[in-house]
């Protein structure tokens, strides 16, 4: 198993934000987690990334305990809803950032970044500054910057939340392509039902700090608390009204 989380919990004062959370994730798969805001999903991601310390529990990657490793040594990249491009660097340098930190040689950096730019269809924007880009372009740079360093896990916190619906759809497809091509293992949290089903190889549901991961998509759909059933009823109701009117 690539990522194994066992019984982590976290409280702020009297408020227990994460309760006995366990999950397992295979390599090159995406686990999408559905949850409303305030369900603890951001805290969970920050714990996995090493940005927040859990009260107890353990995190293992490829069998090795990484619970006490600092964030920069985990190889786990955490992407926020905002693209957070570095405003003082152009597109090329934003994408190259992680490679430069790792002190890779100039030729490798050039090759990898140009390849990434091509894949993201951003080769014409290489010298642009972040404020000159559209929302979708910025998000693509943000993905490129994360994926180019070949992270062991990519954590995505509502990554398409700030995009309009058209761009959002295109980005979802692009992300699936990238996940395939670069063999990415990722954990994606979203409050959007469709997105959760569309993006995940596995689907989970999170509520009040508790996480349930489903064995199959059908199981997820049939569980009334995920909201899929009420959604189905709504659309079927509309359809029935229409047929009755006809």
């Amino acid at each position, binding site marked *: 198993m690539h990522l194994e989380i066992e019984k982590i919990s976290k409280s702020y004062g009297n408020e227990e934000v994460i309760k006995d959370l366990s999950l397992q994730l295979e390599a090159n798969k995406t686990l999408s987690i559905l949850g409303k805001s305030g369900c603890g999903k951001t805290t969970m991601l920050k714990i996995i990334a090493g940005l927040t310390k859990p009260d107890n529990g353990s995190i293992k990657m490829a069998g090795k305990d990484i619970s006490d490793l600092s964030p920069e040594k985990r190889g786990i990249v955490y992407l*926020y809803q*905002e693209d*957070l491009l*570095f405003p*003082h660097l152009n597109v090329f340098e934003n994408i190259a950032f992680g490679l430069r930190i790792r002190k890779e040689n100039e030729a490798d950096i050039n090759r990898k970044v140009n390849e990434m730019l091509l894949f993201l269809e951003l080769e014409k924007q290489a010298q642009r500054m972040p404020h000159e880009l559209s929302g979708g372009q910025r998000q693509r740079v943000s993905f490129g910057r*994360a994926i180019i*360093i070949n992270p062991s896990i990519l954590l995505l916190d509502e990554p398409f939340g700030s995009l309009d619906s058209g761009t959002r759809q295109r980005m979802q497809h692009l992300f699936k392509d990238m996940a395939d091509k670069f063999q990415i293992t990722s954990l994606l949290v979203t409050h959007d039902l469709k997105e959760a089903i569309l993006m995940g190889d596995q689907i989970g549901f999170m509520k009040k700090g508790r996480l349930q991961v489903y064995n199959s998509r059908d199981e997820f759909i049939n569980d009334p608390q995920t909201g899929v059933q009420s959604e189905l009823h709504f659309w079927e109701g509309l359809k029935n009204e229409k047929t009755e009117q006809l």
Partner: protein
Amino acid sequence: MVKSWKPFFVTILIVLVLFPFIYLLLLSMSSGWAFPQIIPSNFGFDNWKAITQSEVGLFTALMNSILIALTVASIATFGGFILSRIVAYHKQKNSLILISYFPYILSPVVFGACLSFFFMKVNLFGNMGGVIIAQLIISLPYALIFFGSFWNEKNRNIENLVATLGGNKIVSFVKVLLPLAKGLLLVCFFQTFLISWFEYGLTAIIGLGKVQTLTIKVFLYIKEANFFYGALSSCLLIMPPVILLYLNKRFVFNRMS
């Protein structure tokens, strides 16, 4: 239709603003000004030539002021930036910020006078090092409060992102945070420069009058009733802030708000 008084008030405003600058400049170029005369009898650059005469000590005062202000501004800006991060991430953030206001609001001279015994003990009484440290006691908290707004959620998230991309603390400071704060650092530098440049009380008490800066000179000339040199030192004091204002108004305005 009632006639508007606005142009009248605007004119008064401009006259009030410009008057002290023109008056001090003229006074600095004057000599011989007996009582009932409204305009001095002699005009010229003789007083200004005094800057180069070593026995007047104005040149030394100017250099001291520049040296002290540059040192204070550099340390306060850099130290304040780091300290403000510590405070911003602390659980008791609000109390710590409240405490930081105190050295600035309480009379710095009373504060300095109570500390003078310790300045004496560590040999920082009556020398430039002591004056610099004394001025840092007020300019550091100023810089700390100044940078408070920089550590907002977005910049914290950026800092976290750098960490997950593999950057350690030094990388995130040098490659991301410092470039992001560049504009603010510059503004803070000039504002703390001016705090030091304008400072009189602490400099007088801890410097014992031995460390002569321009403000100390102005005070001495007032006491000696040497108003022409007083005006000349005042002009020297006013010049850098005017230049800074011309470059960017933000360099000067933002005090205590």
